[in-house]
């Protein structure tokens, strides 16, 4: 194990230099991988701990106009703003609202995720693996430190009797076992995982604040059950940004088994922080689809 990269911990190098393989696969997944000709080489992992503060960043007024979205941005990315239609000024009344993308959050997330992912790839490369299956990635706060830890873990595999990996960079997939077998059966091979985050901040306008908080004073002529336009547009935007970003990473391949999760952190008076994480497997067709045998009907005796 002469070519262990310099920034892996010493214990990792020690672990890899020993003979036995380790695998995070369950036994059914292990059996399915052996059947496909994939031999586990080792359990591999990558981590990155990031300082994770809250952002107090006010981007300044966007485009000016009547009430309704006016699209424009002062710092790149999605942004639209709403002006108060009521025409009066008071300390309690929000005269202006804005949705904007937070590229600095997205960049920080991408940095943390990519650092952890690259370390995982380094570990797998040090093992001479062809690929990594059964990937799991999480990001979780660590204790009360105000830090966020990104973790990526998976099982490095070698193709039995296969040539050494071509460009030295193993393929990766969230799938393992029979689910991976079915993907390959269908004529697709895994290329890599794709993961991205989109972040949008909502500074509520007066109408959004009234509708969200249920404090409509009566003169805003908004019907009960009406859509809260600003929040709805932010929700749509955050999902669209995540989808577009993943699509731009695909480079002609397909995204398989995508899952999208949206989190909303409410900040009061209609203000909110929206986050959308999109994950999936980037796959590439390598052979024509050859229909599988017709399934045999079964009935469970329980």
């Amino acid at each position: 194990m002469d070519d262990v990269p310099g920034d892996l911990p010493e214990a990792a190098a020690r672990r890899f230099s020993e003979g036995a393989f380790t695998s995070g696969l369950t036994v059914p997944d292990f059996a399915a991988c052996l059947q496909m000709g994939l031999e586990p080489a080792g359990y591999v992992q990558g981590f990155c701990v990031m300082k994770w503060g809250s952002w107090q960043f006010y981007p300044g007024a966007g485009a000016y106009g009547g009430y309704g979205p006016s699209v424009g941005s002062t710092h790149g990315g999605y942004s639209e703003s709403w002006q108060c239609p009521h025409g009066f000024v008071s300390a309690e009344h929000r005269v202006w609202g804005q949705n904007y993308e937070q590229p600095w959050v997205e960049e920080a997330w991408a940095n943390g995720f990519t650092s952890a992912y690259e370390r995982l790839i380094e570990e797998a490369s040090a093992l001479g693996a062809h690929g990594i299956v059964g990937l799991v990635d999480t990001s979780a706060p660590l204790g009360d430190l105000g830090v966020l830890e990104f973790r990526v873990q998976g099982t490095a595999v070698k193709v039995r009797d296969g040539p050494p990996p071509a460009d030295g960079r193993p393929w990766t997939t969230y799938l393992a076992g029979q689910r991976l077998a079915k993907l390959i059966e269908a004529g697709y091979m895994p290329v890599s995982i794709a993961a991205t985050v989109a972040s949008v901040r909502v500074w509520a306008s007066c109408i959004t604040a009234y509708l969200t908080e249920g404090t409509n004073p009566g003169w805003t002529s908004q019907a009960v059950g009406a859509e809260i336009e600003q929040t709805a547009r932010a929700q749509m935007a955050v999902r669209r940004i995540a989808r577009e970003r993943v699509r731009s990473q695909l480079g002609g391949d397909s995204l398989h088994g995508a899952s999208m999760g949206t989190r909303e952190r409410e900040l009061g008076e209609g203000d909110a922080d929206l986050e959308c994480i999109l994950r999936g497997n980037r796959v590439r067709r390598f052979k024509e689809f050859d229909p599988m045998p017709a399934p045999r009907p079964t009935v469970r005796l329980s």
Partner: protein
Amino acid sequence: MTDTPQDLPEGASKRLAELEHGLFTSDLSVNEFLLIKEVGFHPLGFVMGSSIYHTGIQTRKWGQSQELTKLTEAMYNARELAMTRMEEEAAELGADGVVGVRLDVNYYEWGKDAAEFIAVGTAVKADNGVSHRNKLGKPFTSDLSGQDFWTLMQTGHIPQGLVMGTCVYHIAHRGIGQTLGSAGQNVELPNFTQALYEARELAMTRMQDEANQLGASGIVGVRLEEKSHQWGSHTIEFLSLGTAVVKTSGEVTLPAPTTIISLDN
């Protein structure tokens, strides 16, 4: 019943003596029971081992990330004792191995800083009388279910032992200067990354050392668990667990899967 180990309670010897007359207890489900019979094993009895351990305290440096070796040893020894006692019960029954092992840690009101480590599982023996004990002559242990045990046997592997490694790590508090220095920025904290990374790798290396002692060819189902137990959020135990297996034949006898469609519901 000549070689009853000294440290098993009297009640255990009595229970095990009854089991030797053919009655068996097990916590296997019906399906697991059938699958274990199918690969030529039968259950002998439900076995367990426990150890109440005073884990003590170790002074931590407020601003330094470091392994707490005394706590690591305590957590490791306590589990090892529980496992060994369970193995002794199994050996007493003449078992080849223990399947479905669960390792738990319980804290009780009456014991401050003390924890009960408990290992339970079902002892099994091969029908054909061929010994399947591991390299050390002890019954193998594994946390595999009956289904997993069956599948593993079809791939030409046999379990050797439930292997584990642990590392208790203290994560430094950040000084005010450091906190202010990076306020409002999202940057990597390489010291933290390195500390946690090191801790997990240590746990996994130790697990692998155990597997090597058993002459295993691999470890399946590795899990990495993280718990703060009762030490506060800055002290974390990293525990890695898996079943060490050895290859008995190069042959995978698992038939090609059949596609099915369920008519239930």
